[in-house]
């Protein structure tokens, strides 16, 4: 099978890769670009562990083909922190103990950041509905929701 050449941007960096047409974006990120933060929890778009943004839109990278990334800007959990400087969401997740096993965490951080970009002042219900596509089996979501609300408040005050 011949590979397709794809030019894209990942976490702000220009990236080129070759991939088979059947490879998902998640496969490409993990196997070709060594970005293993996004996880495959189901492969069917039900759990959200592979969440990334594509041109600012939240997607399950297991449901998108790698070749569809052509010309797009992809953002993954690895791009959330600026070097060693944690994003407020990351800091608040640590502070609120909003993670346990951590498999859902990369997807939830990406989803939460995407929410706060669209809506800097969400209600608790809005947070709960926005994150409903990201399953977590360890935390019961409570600490996650609190961490997101707290980060939103801090980010509003800082802006």
């Amino acid at each position: 099978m011949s590979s397709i050449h794809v030019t894209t941007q990942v976490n702000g960096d220009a990236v080129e890769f070759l991939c088979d047409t059947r490879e998902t974006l998640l496969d490409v990120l993990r196997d070709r670009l060594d970005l293993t933060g996004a996880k495959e929890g189901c492969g069917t778009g039900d759990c959200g562990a592979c969440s990334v943004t594509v041109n600012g839109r939240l997607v399950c990278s297991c449901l998108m083909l790698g070749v569809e990334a052509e010309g797009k800007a992809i953002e993954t959990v690895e791009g959330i922190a600026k070097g060693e400087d944690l994003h407020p969401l990351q800091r608040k997740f640590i502070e609120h103990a909003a993670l346990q096993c951590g498999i859902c965490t990369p997807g939830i951080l990406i989803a939460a950041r995407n929410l706060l970009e669209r809506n800097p002042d969400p209600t608790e219900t809005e947070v709960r509905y926005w994150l409903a596509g990201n399953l977590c089996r360890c935390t019961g979501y409570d600490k996650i929701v609190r961490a997101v609300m707290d980060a939103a408040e801090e980010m509003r005050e800082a802006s």
Partner: protein
Amino acid sequence: MNKMDSAVPGEQNVSYRQIGKPRTRIDSPGKVFGKTPYAGDYVMPNMLHAKVLRSKLPSARMTRLDVSKARDLPGVACVLTYKDLKIGTVATDIPAQTGFRRRDTDQQILVDEIVRYQGEPIALVAAESVEIAEHALSLIEVELEPVPGVYDVFEAQKPDAPKVFGDDNIVASYKVRKGDVEAGFAAAETIVENTFRTQYIEHAFLEPEVGLGWEDEQGVINIRTSTQAVETFRYIADAIGIPHSKVRIRGALVGGGFGGKCDVTVELYIALLTLKTGRPVRLGYTREDSFYGHGKRHPFIISHKTGFAKDGRITASKIDITSESGPYAFMSPYVLMYATEAGPGPYLVDNVHIDSRSVATNNMYTSAFRGFGATQACIAYEQQMDEAAKVLGMDPIELRRINLLKTGDAIATGFEVQSAVWTEECMDRAWAALGEKPKDEGAIRYGHGIAAYQQGYGRMIWLHDTAEGWVGVEMDGTVVVRSGMTDIGAGQTSSLAQIAGELLGVDMMDITVYNSDSSTTPLAGTSSATRGLYMSGNAVRNAATAVRNRLAARAAQHFGVADSDIDFADSRVFVASDREKSLPFKELIATCASEGIHRSELAIFRAPFGDWIDPETGQGQVHPDYTYGAHAVQVAVDTETGEVTILKSVGAHDVGQCVNIAAVEGQIEGGVAQGHGYALSEELIYKDGCLVTPSLSEYLCPTSMDSPRIECIILESRSGLGPFGAKGIGEPGHTPAASAVANAVADAIGARVHDFPLTPEKIARAVSATRDNG
């Protein structure tokens, strides 16, 4: 959100520097960066990719198996069937931890003739890519001839039923005979009888089973995998026919377990393929593989007949328990034991009669799941208490209050619990936290529900459980902990760091924990059975205490004071009665190093050992100790649609002593969410042994949208057997949550749905039945 209560008369002066605080876990930063390597993130050069061919039928005879086309496919390195196995079976007992192995509990590794459940593995393939491995699976020619199976626990007990296990399909059975149950019923004013059913459910850890195996320079088969138990190396070695010392399990931080990663799954297939090919082999389950490929939570059918005196006191309790084991034993006998022991709940009952059995069928096999049978027992005894309160015309809280076990009382097996039994305090506080019940509005009705519980922590005492731990101090004053315990996301390793840090006066962030390596970390047993902190925490505490004592003796000599006057904090050693006299910790370490004073220790912790309970009476000690607490829930039920919204959910537990309070809350909150799903939406549906819900779009775990705020009320009796008086909380947080939801729903609609889960359909039907009757 939490409320703390550490009021213990006489012990209020106990204070710790790190223990009990809401500390950031040492594993958190890597996880928020997305940089933590999990078992599935490891790759190696020249690595093969594996796939498992599974039976599509639940009960069949294999009449043909031809893998020649698959073997001939370019890129296929290896195809294994039963014919290629030196040994055909693998143990399903508690992972090789206790030195003894129950008879007749092994499982065939690959189908050799008879298929006993849908998804049973038939062949293994290793190929250059996942795609080639998948293609090879499709080229394997299998002919399966259906044979009559049995898919119902009552059918399975009939004499002419197809035999799945032994000659009677009974995997285990127990009885409890305490007091005189008939006399108890004769003395009763009221007798209440009910039968409750629970369903198959799935752990649904977010990280499906995965591992990577390779052979090292000593010929050892190494397997990096996501497991709750590194001791499985022994069973894997036995099953592939090499010495125990030639298999090494290296865990990684685990992406959730909940009991579902205790049994051997991918690691055995990886070991077989690595041994055969001599190349690294990676096997990652898809979500669908995970649905078909590991044991589920046992469905139970539990009948209660309870006698009550006029004042509400229980006079007799007769309980009949049936659990479904599927075709292989796995943890079923032990899970049944937990359910039997917990049968009457956290109540003082003098006359108890329990019969229990675990029955084999051709539905999926069942094994460990958070709570280990005590959860299902709670679903029955707590709904029974509410039903009894209704019949007796009593307040459900007051009925419980009259009957709750108190500290020092004997439980169903006659064992007198030595630690604090603070169920009543937990119940009152959880119930009070619900506040006023809102007034019904049209079709929306509100309900409050409570559930109290008893959950053993640690292993059953006849398993003679031990854990080892190693603590050492580096030359710069930082500390290393080694423990075989796995970290399944609950913060197990972090708690060990906190314990060693407390004792050695070093911040937990200056402590490195090496864990879950079956060859280089001292074996500590599984992270299951609410034993992680109890067992490994005590082992590390013992080791750190021994190191501390030696260092303190040297420091005492330096300062010219008694050993007992030496204390450690903030990486300094000082005289407690004169804090001006102090040294940097690392200076003390340098002195000890130059004088050859041993700065490390390997310690063992032994849980209480005992014999089996009396098989005729069920009397004796089962667990080292128990955790007690209660959960309260407020729901709104739409009586037109049957939809339930959980508005408040409050867990109150006596955890003995928090090590990391944030982690304790995490265990409670996560367990509660799993309980909400158990009560309302989660169900693995098997139709004649075939799973009809093999995806996360059909198997419905709670989402953030379905979940309410969860309040934790944490009490500390400091009476547990864990480090610093801790009790276990890993399972207990989950145990009463589903029962409380069920009681709240019944309170709202004025009717009981006896069969879990409480789906909108069942609730709407129950509502309309009350209308028809009323």
